[in-house]
């Protein structure tokens, strides 16, 4: 089984400042990692995913994440945020034996202010 911990429930950040959202996971098998974003009153949209290969993954809207196997982490970063990045962000993990089932973290609410 897999589990995911998002270390911050809320992250306030000023516009044009950088942001990092932390995600740690545990698993006894190989994993696939995802970050999803949820804008108010909407479904989830995939930001980026790590399946294999390069540990630095680039996604949509200028986000990137780095897979660190030794630290079992998959932190999400953006160098300069916009007001429109205000949303909830979810880290999710799927085990190689999980048939695509996702285990989600509790979410991190990002609030961008001018």
């Amino acid at each position, binding site marked *: 089984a897999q589990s*995911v911990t*998002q270390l911050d*429930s809320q992250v306030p950040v000023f516009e044009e400042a950088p942001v990092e959202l932390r995600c740690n996971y545990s698993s006894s098998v190989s994993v*696939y990692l*995802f970050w*999803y974003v949820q804008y108010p009153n*909407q*479904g*989830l*949209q*995939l930001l980026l*995913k790590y*399946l294999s290969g390069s540990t630095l993954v680039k996604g949509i809207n200028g986000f990137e994440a780095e897979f660190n196997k030794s630290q079992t982490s998959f932190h999400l970063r953006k160098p300069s945020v916009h007001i429109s990045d205000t949303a909830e962000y*979810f880290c*999710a993990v*799927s085990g190689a034996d999980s*048939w*695509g*089932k*996702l*285990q*989600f*973290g*509790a*979410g991190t609410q990002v609030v961008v202010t001018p």
Partner: protein
Amino acid sequence: DAGITQSPRHKVTETGTPVTLRCHQTENHRYMYWYRQDPGHGLRLIHYSYGVKDTDKGEVSDGYSVSRSKTEDFLLTLESATSSQTSVYFCAISDSTGFSYEQYFGPGTRLTVT
């Protein structure tokens, strides 16, 4: 956007009544999932389907049943609704093999049990 619709989008029902939520896809994807979203818990898997008439339980399946008689439709039934089932329910689909591990989410159904 992936062709996923959910109906109804909002529902208020009374304790003890049965409720059925519908997920419809136009992508011909093999895998379909039902999640519930609650504050502080992220999304939790209720049931999933890996083909017509092939379903299995997820993390929080008690009090829920599912059916899939056609590729495009996945129904979630609350057999006797309770207040603890007040939540936002999301349907997701995954591609034909399930091994891309990328899920596409519907817009959600907000269910209130009074």
